[in-house]
């Protein structure tokens, strides 16, 4: 009684706050999801049933954001008719990749809007010497060189000026083909990162397979947990600094953290075992005495899968890493931008749809009272799961791409596509999650209420973990479905040919919004007359399937982990 009495005083306000924050957040995310679905129904119904024949959806291209160009002329000389006058812009491009080159490019700015031509720079020179670009049009300089390219303006109207009036772009530098994953076929990983991955693999083996000899050696570290922990921290920091904070440096650092955490837990487990007078070689016993062994293993495996992905990607596979598409040499083309487009669209779709849909499912299943409104919403969600994907594309066009009315005006961008796909996945995830939540036995809820849980605590600590395998399965299904979907993105405005890495947030920040995804790329390639393109399309299909398998295997690791935690 004494322990409890002392503890009793501390708590009540915190509990109430948590309860309110938890259920309010839940209700809010549920409401956002339901709002999306309601707006979707409204958008489908309105033009047909309310506006009748006069209803129309305006073309997407009207609303491509026009700002933030790489080279922009904000003060063009305009005559009385509004036409541009003045000299052509002349740029001088120079670089030195062992064979110094200098090229002049004449850029004529015309009054026409939206006209653009990209300039491609490679070791043989520049693709063109004269370019015509439209007023307020962004155009790109694409470089496949490993060295910086210096750009100087020789004549023509002054480009965008900074606040002092000086030209903002007097001379600027395009860096070489910057690539996170590979540099000309050599590994970008530092030895420390590789060591981190090997160490992680080592500890995964150590706590999954019995190896008495090594365990005996590890045991000698007993009592030095603190040293092991700080050693791991130090290695992680060194990896980060040496790897200059790139993505794989972060992964390497995470690996070191994981290795440290697992070793500390393992040492604790060994000590516990020793205290019980047992031998550490009794592996079955050791398994049980490691705190949260399953969780550690799951995270370590996930981390390893992610890290391992970077090893094959560090090898130069032109088909994956090449972003040029030459109409005359199909086999030299690559799907880099489609690949990244798919990854970004999926990421955004997942980030948007999973929390909202799971929140909506919890709200509908656990919190909402069975009123007529709830039943109506339930029926709507059920029916939405069967709506053809092209309809979702129209919805995305109206809400995310288009500006004006309820439209967000993101343009035909990755963000708009991701949101559209997310909305498409929502009803599927909501239904699967509801089913999973419904199948959580009542006895579990009762036992949780029996120890004095509030409703939010029951949901968070017991119902949700038990429903997790089902929710994961539903989410995998939904994600697999939208990954292969081309139809909605055709409507949203994925491009046929994109020669640069897509910018995921371009819709908001106003960069170049063009993007494409693998299914769209396959579709456009199959419609080319040349046979070689059809083989390319087949290769792209295989890439899509492999990508899908990789994503699913991560989800399966997660799902199996949750399942194993429930039934050993």
């Amino acid at each position, binding site marked *: 009684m004494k322990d409890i009495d002392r503890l009793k005083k501390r708590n009540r306000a915190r509990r109430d706050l948590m309860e309110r924050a938890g259920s309010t957040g839940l209700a809010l995310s549920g409401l956002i999801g339901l709002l999306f679905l309601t707006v979707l129904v409204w958008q489908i119904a309105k033009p047909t049933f309310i506006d009748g024949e006069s209803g129309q959806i305006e073309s997407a291209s009207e609303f491509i954001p026009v700002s933030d160009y790489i080279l922009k002329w904000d003060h063009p000389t305009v005559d009385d008719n509004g036409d541009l006058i003045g000299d052509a812009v002349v740029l001088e491009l120079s670089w030195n990749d062992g064979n110094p080159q200098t090229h002049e490019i004449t850029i004529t700015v015309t009054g026409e809007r939206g006209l653009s031509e990209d300039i491609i720079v490679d070791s043989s020179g520049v693709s063109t010497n004269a370019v015509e670009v439209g007023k307020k049009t962004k155009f790109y300089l694409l470089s496949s060189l490993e060295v910086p390219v210096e750009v100087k303006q020789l004549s023509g109207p002054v480009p965008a000026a900074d606040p002092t009036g000086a030209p903002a772009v007097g001379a600027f530098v395009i860096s070489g083909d910057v690539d996170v994953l590979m540099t000309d076929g050599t590994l970008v990983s530092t030895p420390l990162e590789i060591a981190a991955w090997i160490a992680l693999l080592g500890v995964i083996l150590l706590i999954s397979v019995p190896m008495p000899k090594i365990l005996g050696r590890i045991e000698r570290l007993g009592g030095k947990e603190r040293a092991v922990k700080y050693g791991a921290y130090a290695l992680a920091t060194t990896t980060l600094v040496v790897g200059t904070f790139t993505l794989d440096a972060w992964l390497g650092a995470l690996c070191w953290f994981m290795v440290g955490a697992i070793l500390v837990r393992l040492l604790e487990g060994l000590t516990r075992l020793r205290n019980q007078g047992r031998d550490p070689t009794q592996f079955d016993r050791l398994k049980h*005495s*490691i705190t949260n062994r399953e969780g550690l293993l799951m995270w370590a495996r996930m981390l390893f899968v992610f890290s391992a992905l970077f090893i094959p990607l560090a090898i130069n596979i032109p088909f994956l890493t090449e972003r040029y598409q030459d109409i005359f040499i199909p086999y030299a083309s690559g799907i880099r931008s489609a690949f990244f487009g798919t990854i970004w669209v999926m990421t955004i779709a997942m980030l948007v749809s999973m929390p909202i849909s799971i929140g909506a499912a919890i709200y509908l299943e656990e919190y909402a009272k069975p009123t007529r409104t709830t039943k109506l919403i339930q029926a709507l969600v059920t029916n939405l799961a069967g709506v053809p994907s092209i309809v979702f594309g129209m919805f995305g066009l109206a809400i995310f791409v288009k500006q004006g009315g309820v439209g967000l005006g993101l343009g035909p961008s990755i963000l708009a596509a991701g949101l559209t796909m997310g909305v498409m996945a929502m009803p599927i995830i909501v239904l699967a999650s509801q089913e999973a939540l419904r199948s959580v036995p009542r006895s*579990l809820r009762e036992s949780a209420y029996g120890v004095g849980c509030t409703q939010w605590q029951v949901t968070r600590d017991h119902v949700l973990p038990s429903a997790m395998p089902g929710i994961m399965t539903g989410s995998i299904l939904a994600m697999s479905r939208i990954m292969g979907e081309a139809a909605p993105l055709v409507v949203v405005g994925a491009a046929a040919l994109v020669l640069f890495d897509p910018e995921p947030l371009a819709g908001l920040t106003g960069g170049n919004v063009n993007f494409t995804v693998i299914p769209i790329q396959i579709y456009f390639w199959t419609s080319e007359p040349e046979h070689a393109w059809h083989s390319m399309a087949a290769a792209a299909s295989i890439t899509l399937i492999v990508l899908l398998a990789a994503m699913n295997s991560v989800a399966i690791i997660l799902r199996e982990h949750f399942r194993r935690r429930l039934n050993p």
Partner: protein
Amino acid sequence: MSEEIGGELVPNSTRELDIDGEIDVMIEDLDLWYSSNQALHGVSLPIAKNRVTALIGPSGCGKSTLLRTINRMNDLIPICRYEGKITKGDVVITDKGADLVELRKSIGMVFQRPNPFPKSIYDNVAYGVRLHHQPTREELDRIVEKSLNRAAIWNEVADRLHDLGTSLSGGQQQRLCIARTIAIEPDIILMDEPCSALDPIATAAIEELILELKKDFTVVIVTHSMSQAARVSDYTGFMYLGRMVEFNKTEKIFSEPDQELTKRYITGRFG
């Protein structure tokens, strides 16, 4: 005062409820409906402090319903509504604004089927304590060990605290559930047929445990086994068709019951 229902002469719920010693919880005139179906008819029952009160009666007579009203577990069933008053000291349990969390903290419950959380044995016991207090690691370790000890299961699980609670045998699971309940130090423990899913050996272990728990807690147990009620309880209430037919000291009920119906039930002639 009696009425005839289904060929049986059923007396109205009894009101003569004398007990010696302190009353912990008092149930007065409780009526309860599932939709339009009345499950309890004016039931009154005193629950004596630090004693074991047993509720017996045929299936569907409202024993479990009555038990689940004491910690308002019935609130989880949307079609359930009730009238009447249950008090625990100054606290009116049936009050609309009652703090259900405090209530369920002070009135723990053990269910018919063992239902440990799908977490480790340690976390099963620690969960409630963590929920209501912020114990330090050492405090928590001490509470877990003490609770498992009091539930007479410590020796069996001491070296596998991080195994899943659901990996234990049925009897061990039920004792784990009891440990989970006493870890948060309730005043009262409600047991809803705790031994119905267990074999005789596990049943004997639990019964011994109940007698032990009596020293610190008030226990209310619903049981189908008359012999179990006779063995462990100090007071017994016999219910039939939602009415409290007779309530008295256990020896009295099992030796010379006042009501004809009680006599026929405990001698096994109906029900």
